[in-house]
């Protein structure tokens, strides 16, 4: 059980799976920069947030629902949670773009389900991801493997935050899409890039 003060944000899980350094930059160093991708994501969410709860037949659709889990030390918001009349609770997370290769979206959605299970004291077997670019829902089953992965990532993020150390940068192709590229400086802050060598190169290697 975690203290409320030590809760991490749900979004941190996804950041961690994308890149542990990105996660530390955002959640430990509190740095944020917007680029096209984050702006699109924000607008998509704002749109989802702006609409009110509504009932569609046998389903009550609740938007921007605050959720948390003391067991996992998590807090955040669920974009959309459907409450069906038969008792089923079904979270839906909105994503810009298309399905990713990694499991970060699934983990984030599963974490929402774990929060809801703890708060509502019931089982949530499945949810869905809605991808803006494809305008399509992808149903996700919360199987034991996904639950295990989600809990494991939660622990890793807690360790990262409480350790108060940002991992070293590793330059990768995916860095190009990261809005924190300029904050991170993955090419400047690797272990190979030494300042003393730079000084020698600039001062000794004279014309």
């Amino acid at each position, binding site marked *: 059980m975690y203290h409320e003060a030590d809760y991490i944000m749900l979004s941190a899980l996804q950041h961690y799976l994308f890149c542990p350094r990105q996660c530390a930059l955002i959640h430990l160093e509190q740095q944020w920069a917007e680029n096209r991708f984050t702006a699109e994501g924000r607008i998509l969410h704002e749109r989802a947030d702006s609409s009110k709860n509504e009932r569609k037949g046998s389903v009550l659709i609740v938007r921007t629902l605050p959720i948390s889990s003391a067991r996992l030390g998590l807090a955040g918001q669920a974009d959309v949670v459907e409450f069906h009349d038969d008792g089923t609770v079904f979270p839906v997370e909105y994503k810009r773009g298309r399905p990713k290769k990694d499991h970060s979206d699934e983990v984030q959605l599963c974490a929402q389900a774990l929060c809801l299970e703890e708060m509502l004291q019931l089982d949530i077997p499945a949810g869905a991801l809605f991808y803006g670019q494809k305008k399509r829902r992808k149903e996700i089953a919360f199987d034991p493997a996904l639950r295990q992965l989600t809990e494991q990532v939660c622990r890793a993020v807690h360790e990262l935050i409480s350790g108060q150390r*940002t991992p070293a940068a590793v330059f990768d192709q995916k860095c190009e899409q990261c809005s924190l590229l300029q904050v991170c400086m993955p090419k400047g802050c690797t272990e190979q890039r030494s*300042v003393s060598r730079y000084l020698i190169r600039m001062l000794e290697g004279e014309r």
Partner: protein
Amino acid sequence: MRKMLNTLYVTTQGAYLHKEGETVVVQVDKENKLRLPVITLSSIVCFGNVLCSPFLLGHCAENDVAVSFMTEYGRFLARVQGPVSGNVLLRREQYRRADCDRSSAELARMFVLGKVANARTILQRGLRDHGAKAPAEGLDQACRQLAHYSKRLLQEDDLESIRGVEGRTARDYFDQFDSLIVTRKQDFVFSGRNRRPPRDRVNCLLSFVYALLYHDTRSALETVGLDPAVGFLHRDRPGRLSLALDLMEEFRPFLADRLVLSLINLGQVKNKGFEVTASGAVRMDDETRKTVLVAYQKRKQEEIEHPFLQEKIPVGMLVFAQAQLLSRYLRSDLDAYPPFLWR
């Protein structure tokens, strides 16, 4: 890459700035003269009697747009600050190192190193470009002095001696500065640095451009979450942004001095654009101030390869890159702070 954002300089006396939706509107005599989206700005600098609505100020604070107020002549008066941003862990580390002479010395020598090496580049370029017109011997001698000191700084770890080197090399450099002015010699004479008040046209230009640079380094430091008031080379003094002054050092020759020299040498500023007051203080007129601001903005839009990051960035982003590198060093991501070295 972070977007290269603009600075809006407002020099029209009596102008009124307010917010309309997401834009800033500049009004003169109740007439809308200019409308700009706030998100395209990194800062607003108001000179003299310029008014800003509180809603615009709040909106700027929310969007990381720095707003500063200067006197008509460019002396800094005040700035508007939103909620404290950035990271407490970073600021604590900054304070811890500033409290320690050894750690301060490590950073101070890098700032001074940047200044000395870049000052040397200025002299060297002067020697190369107009060595025939200028008394080359003194220049050459000063170049060698500065080269000697920049190498000596690499071994220096005593704060007082670093400050000593800084003072000495500044003298050596400014002793030669006059010989870099190759046209309009009779109007633009430089016989040493003076600032309170500037007593010749060259000093008047230098002071003004330094004030612009001070504003830029301060915003850059605040953007990365550092406290601009707690420095390493410069000691704490209320009202002074010591870290902004520290970070400015490496940029003085490259951004400010070079700009002043080219404004004079290319004849962009004229003798009659300055007023010599009864006290001997020299002021520039509105026209000249505008010329300097436009030239400064233009310089910031040029691209340059960052020598350490080895990436092309606009000159105006250099101060941000250096502030970022400084914070990465304080967070132990780098083995030392790499000053911006221009060649």
